[in-house]
C-alpha cells in the first residue's frame, strides 16, 4: 500500500517535471517588449512593414536537429497562425523530422528555419508573405531556392541559388532523398494553413518555402486573431473554395459591419465557393448577416 502511494507520488512528480516542460516547449506569446525593441532597433521591423508588431506571435517549439538531439527553438508568425503552426511543429517533433536552427537570431551558417522577416519577394515587387508572418522557410540549406533568372542582352541567363552554396546545389537533386527534405512535410504544413509550397512552382523552385496563399493572407490580416484562425481552418478544409476567394473588399466590409456574426455566416457559406462564384456567395452572406 505504501509502495503504491510512493509510486503514485513519484509518477505525479515525474509528470510535473516532464509534462510541464513539454507544455512549455510548445507555446506562443505576444512579442515581449524587449524583443520588440530589439527588432525595431535592428531595423528588422519598420513602420513600412505591412503588419504591426502586435499582430505577431513568438512561438517556442521543441525540435530535433540533424544530430538527433533535442533543441528548443523560437519562431515568429502572424498571430492567427500561432496555434496551427505549433501543431505543425508538434507533428514534426513526433515524426522526428530534423530541423535546421529554429531561431529568430541570424544563425552563423545557412542552416536555418524561420518565419517572419519583413522583406520583399526575391527578384520581385511587393512584400513576401514572410513580411506578414504568413510564411515559413524550413531547412533552408537542404531545400534551396532557384529562380530570379535574368535574361541578358547577350543571351546569357543567370539565376540565383539561395543559399548560394555547393551544399544547397546538391539538394537541387530531389531524387536522392535525404533527411530534412521538405517533400516529407508538405502535408503537415498544409494542415497548418501553409497550403502553398514553393516546391510546386513552375517559374522558380523554392523547396524551403511554405506560405498561406496571398489571396487568403490578404483576407486574414484584417480579421482578429481568433476569427483569422477559424478562417484559415476553413481554407484547409475547403481548398477548392479557398482557391476561388479573392481579396474583394466586400469580404472586409462584411467583417467590419458584422464582426460578431461574420464567422458563423462564413462557416456556413464558405463551402459553397467551390461550386458557386464569389459574387453569389458574398451576396448570400450579406443577405444572411443583414437580415438576422
Amino acid at each position, binding site marked *: 500500500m505504501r509502495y503504491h502511494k510512493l509510486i503514485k507520488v513519484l509518477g505525479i512528480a515525474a509528470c510535473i517535471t516532464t509534462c510541464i516542460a513539454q507544455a512549455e516547449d510548445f507555446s506562443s506569446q505576444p512579442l515581449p517588449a524587449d524583443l520588440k525593441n530589439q527588432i525595431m532597433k535592428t531595423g528588422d521591423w519598420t513602420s513600412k512593414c505591412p503588419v504591426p508588431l502586435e499582430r505577431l506571435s513568438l512561438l517556442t517549439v521543441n525540435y530535433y536537429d540533424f544530430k538527433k538531439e533535442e533543441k528548443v527553438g523560437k519562431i515568429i508568425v502572424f498571430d492567427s497562425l500561432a496555434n496551427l503552426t505549433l501543431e505543425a511543429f508538434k507533428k514534426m517533433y513526433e515524426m522526428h523530422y530534423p530541423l535546421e536552427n529554429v531561431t529568430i537570431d541570424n544563425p*552563423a*551558417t*545557412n542552416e536555418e528555419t524561420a518565419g517572419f522577416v519583413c522583406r520583399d519577394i526575391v527578384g520581385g515587387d511587393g512584400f513576401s508573405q514572410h513580411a506578414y508572418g504568413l510564411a515559413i522557410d524550413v531547412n533552408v*540549406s537542404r531545400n534551396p531556392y*532557384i529562380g530570379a*533568372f535574368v*535574361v541578358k542582352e547577350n*543571351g*546569357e*541567363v*543567370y*539565376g*540565383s*541559388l539561395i*543559399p*548560394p*552554396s*555547393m*551544399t*544547397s*546545389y*546538391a539538394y*537541387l*537533386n*530531389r*531524387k*536522392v532523398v535525404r533527411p530534412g527534405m521538405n517533400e516529407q512535410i508538405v502535408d503537415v504544413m498544409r494542415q497548418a494553413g501553409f497550403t502553398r509550397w514553393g*516546391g*510546386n*512552382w*513552375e*517559374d*522558380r*523552385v523554392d523547396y524551403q518555402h511554405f506560405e498561406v496563399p496571398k489571396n487568403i493572407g490578404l483576407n486574414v490580416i484584417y480579421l482578429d486573431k481568433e476569427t483569422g484562425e477559424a478562417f484559415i481552418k476553413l481554407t484547409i478544409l475547403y481548398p477548392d473554395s479557398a482557391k476561388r476567394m479573392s481579396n474583394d473588399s466586400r469580404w472586409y466590409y462584411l467583417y467590419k459591419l458584422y464582426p460578431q456574426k461574420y464567422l458563423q455566416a462564413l462557416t456556413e457559406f464558405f463551402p459553397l465557393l467551390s461550386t458557386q462564384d464569389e459574387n453569389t456567395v458574398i451576396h448570400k452572406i450579406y443577405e444572411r448577416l443583414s437580415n438576422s
Partner: protein
Amino acid sequence: MNKPFIFLSIFFISINAQSLPLPAVFKSEMLTNQIRTELIQSGVWKNGCPINLDDLQVLTFSYYDFAGQPHTDGKIILNKSIATATLHVFQALYAKHFPINSPSTLISYQGSWREAENRNVTYGFVCYQNRNGNFIQDSYGTSLTINPVQNPEIVFIPTSRYAALCTVVNHFMNCDQFFPSAKVFVLPVNGILSINRSLHLKGMVEDVVTIFSNNGFTWQGDSLQRINWKKFNYSQPSVNNAIPQAN
C-alpha cells in the same frame, strides 16, 4: 451518282494510308565516305579528337516526336562499341512512345552542341574540350543527350576562384560560408522552365531512366556534384549483345 462514292473511297484510302504502322528501323552502320566528309567539313570531328572516325558509327532509329508522330529517320553518331546497347534503348523508348525531339548528327549545326541544345536537339557524339582542356565524355561517343530543353543542366558558378576547393574542403568543414555569393545558370537557357522535376513535363527523362540504366548508361541527373538531367553516360558493358530486331 458516282461522285459521293469516289469521294468516300478517297477518304478511306487516305485514312488507311495514315493508320498503317510504319515499319520501325533500328540499325547501326559504318560511316560512309560521304558522312565522313560531312563530319569533317562541319567540324563535328576534327584532328585531335580522342576517337577515330573508324570507331564511330551512324545509328538510324525510329522514334516518336512531341506531337506523337512516329519517324523512321532518327540519326545520331556514336562509338561503335555502344551501338547495340543504344539501339536497345531507342527500341524501348519507341515501344513506350517516349517523345524524342530532333535527333541529329550535329552536322547541320556545324558541331555546335550549344546551338543544337537551344533547339532541343537530341544527339550523341560531339568533340568538345572543356575549359581545363579535357575532352568531355561526348567526345568519345559514349554519351547521349536527350531533349535538352526538358532536361537541362544546372551549372553552379561560385564567384570566388577558390570555391572549387569547397568540393574537397566540405568533407572536413563547412566551406560554404566563405563564399557568400554564387550564381547558377541553366544549359540550355530555355531549360529554365524545366527545373522543377516534379512537374513531369512531356519529354522529361525521369520515367525512362531505367531503360538507360538497364543498358549500361548512367544518368547524370542523379549526381550530387553536377546536376545534368539530359545526359546519359555509358559506363558498363552491355549484358544484352543481340542486335534488336526491327518490328
